[in-house]
């Protein structure tokens, strides 16, 4: 066990855990930030995607020892009132079915738009193919990303 400090959604937090503990479980078990989901534990499904200094990463593969002293944004901190352009686009397109994977999808999509505000279809596919949706909402996700992209560039 060891003490780690970390900035999550702009708040400085600390936690006393085994250094190998993935950020995913620190978020969920220790900080009760349950929007970041467990799906596979091996960085294959994208349900646990968060922003690490602004880049989309799989929190299930990021030990707290490597995450500490960095800035993390989770779905809960993406916007203050749930009004990030990507969240708004998700609502406009009524994307979710079961909804479980969607926080991860939104975090991947928002990181994509941050570095590429006008992604092509191919760019979207490349950036989003690490996020599995068993319900099959892929066509709506793509449409929502385009809507968010348009709303940002106008």
């Amino acid at each position, binding site marked *: *066990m060891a003490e780690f400090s970390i900035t999550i959604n702009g708040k400085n937090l600390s936690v006393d*855990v*085994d250094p*190998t*503990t*993935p950020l995913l*479980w620190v978020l*969920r*078990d220790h900080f*009760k*930030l*349950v*929007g*970041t*989901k*467990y*799906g*596979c*534990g*091996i960085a*294959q*499904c994208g*349900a646990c995607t968060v922003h690490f200094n602004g880049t989309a990463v799989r929190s299930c593969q990021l030990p707290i020892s490597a995450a500490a002293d960095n800035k993390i944004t*989770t*779905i*809960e901190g993406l916007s203050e*009132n*749930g009004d990030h352009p990507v*969240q708004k686009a*998700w*609502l406009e397109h*009524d*994307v*979710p*079915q*079961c*909804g*479980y*994977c*969607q*926080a991860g999808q*939104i975090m991947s999509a928002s990181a994509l738009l941050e570095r590429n505000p006008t992604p092509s*279809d191919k760019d*979207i*596919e490349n950036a*989003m*193919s*690490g*996020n*599995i*949706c*068993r*319900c*099959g*909402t*892929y*066509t*709506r*996700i*793509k449409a929502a990303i385009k809507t968010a992209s348009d709303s940002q560039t106008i």
Partner: protein
Amino acid sequence: MTKVKTSLGRRSFIKSVSLAGGGLIIGFNWLACKGPVEEGSEELAMQMPKEWFELNGYLKIGENGIVTIYSPNPEIGQNVKTSMPMIVAEELDVDWNNVIVEQAPLNTEIFTRQLAGGSQSIRQGWQSLRTAGATARQMLLTAAADQWGVPISELSVENGVIKHEGSDKTIGYGEIAKAAVNVEIPEEVELKEIDNFKIIGTSRKNVDAKKIVTGQPLYGIDTYKDGMLIAMVIQPPAFGMEFKSMDAEKAKGMPGIKDIFTIDTYPEDMEKEWSDVGSFSKLVVVVGESTWQVMQAKKAVKVEWDLNPKLTKEIEILEKSAGMDGATGLESSDIHTNLMAEVGSRKSEIVRKDGDPEKAFKNAARVIERSYTCPFLSHNCMEPMNFFADVSDGKAELLGPIQTPEYAEKSVNKRLGYDLENIDIQMTRMGGGFGRRLYGHFLVEAAVISEKMGTPIKLVYSREDDMTNGVYRPAYHVTYRAALDANNKLTAFHVNAGGIPESPLFANRFPAGAVDNYLAESWSLETNISVGAFRAPRSNFIAGAEQSFLDELSEEMGQDPIQFRLDLLERAGSDPVGEENDYDAARYAAVLKLARDKSGWNNSSGMNRGVSAYYCHNSYVAQILDLRVENNKPLIDKVTCAVDCGIVVNPDAAKNMVEGGTIDGIGHALYSEMTFKDGVPQQSNFDTYKIIRHNEAPKSIDVHFIDNGIDPTGLGEPPFPPVMGALANALYKATGKRFYKQPFITELQGDLKT
């Protein structure tokens, strides 16, 4: 207007008055038009009523006109939590923007069939949901008529405001709700004409959408309660094996670990419910403070496993009969495939026979015979199996994702011996269901673990536990034969279908009824691998196989594949063979025609297009799929879908469901399989088990509904099976090769590489 008796749902009409602060407001969602509101926020304080008047078990009305509607059925992503309350709100005649939706807990006194399965929630809930709304409306009107001393016939309602035609008097539902509670429940109520629907048939957003996109706790796995510990299980590494012994000394000493022990979920003398499916009754359980600690401790427990003689006996007999030596009861997929191809059909039983198929085949100028097969599949709900249990002092409080709460309650009753009234089951929104959560062994395991620990626990399966302790889609095999006479006319049709351990045959489905000489046979082989319902059970294989065969048949006969089907359906409609046919030929033909028109089928030369149509779960779906194959990879440009599910309650959400079912169907037929070697599942996570991804999804999906005003039928499952046939038929157009074995990608890429 349709008059209906209210007596059917009599038990639902328990009336009461309660204060809003009385802890009844759980799972508050949001007022659709006013944006998100959080419990305890100022906005909510202004909007929430001080007092609630419960007119029946489905709804309550606040003094300010806010209405809470309880959604009775489990929500697995099929969006019933929005569409079921829409039906109540329609008949109640309220403004949807003033409606709050809450997930109802299991309550067999009020609700019937609180189950997510068979695409039946809307179909079977249609009448009771409408009656609940209409009855409350009638009581509110009666109370207003009494108060004003006017006949009820002079009153009308719009958006929850009652108006008297003869004067300018108006009164809101909230103002009259208190008086309405004392009105006698009407014996009979009138339901609206469908032409007068204002909410049904209009698109309404998912009531949980805001919480989903902001990451609020909604799912069972998100449950954290005071004093709660995390439990995980260690299960046998292979089907056919069982626990023998363990050494957990080291693991017990690891940080955060509270206990390690074994449980027997389903003792031999326990009377099981049908939902109590699971191959591994005896499990090792690790309980600790946090998930990561428990995951680490699991790896440190040394467990020895043994062959389970009970589970291996029948298989041994089966494999010996197949002439395979050295059977251990540890099954392998290559043996399954051989058994299905060689042994299965020898065990066939005739399920349906019309005319004289033997004679027709004997006299045929040509016989076309093709066989199709598919592997086991894992459900892979994105939210792994989990459940919260707090079992103490003779009470069991259970919270989590379950498609069959009523059965689960009985299972806990039988397993723990607690009375039903001391078992409380609350349903969370589910991160996928697809049939997997019909089988609540994980709920029973959680209850047993909590009772043993004497503390609240949350049982969580790792992805590997989830995938390798599945209740899988069975493996299936079907052989079709068609007899053609010298004029290339279809004279007989033969289907021989079976699987491990069930047959996918629907003997009375199309093309039964369309061919004079028809034979349907069925068989099954035993297995010790646990299987169960998977999105559109049995249809999820046989639809694609049948529609591939009909495509090949139409080509052999030199006919357009759609016209060929329409001609058969014309025969089935005008002069059906047999009386047991389970489909409506005209509705079937209508979706094919709609898909043909919308896709521009008649102008599709040069495109690689496949068509398919199927009837299941009371609904009809036709799909036309366009693809290209580039660099060994199929690229799907477009799928046109035509759907007849009767009245479409929530059109945009229904469209979402069809899009999702289409992508899911393509994905499973093309990419997914669960294989076994010596009983060991060969795929245990998404690195080895392939699920369709963004870049493999169709570029566009075009969805059209038939508008026929017929009472609504299923939609969660029907779009899933037929697209597999459309895919196979389009792949044939692109490659010149027919695809008989799922997942198609194996043959496709194997072929292209050589």
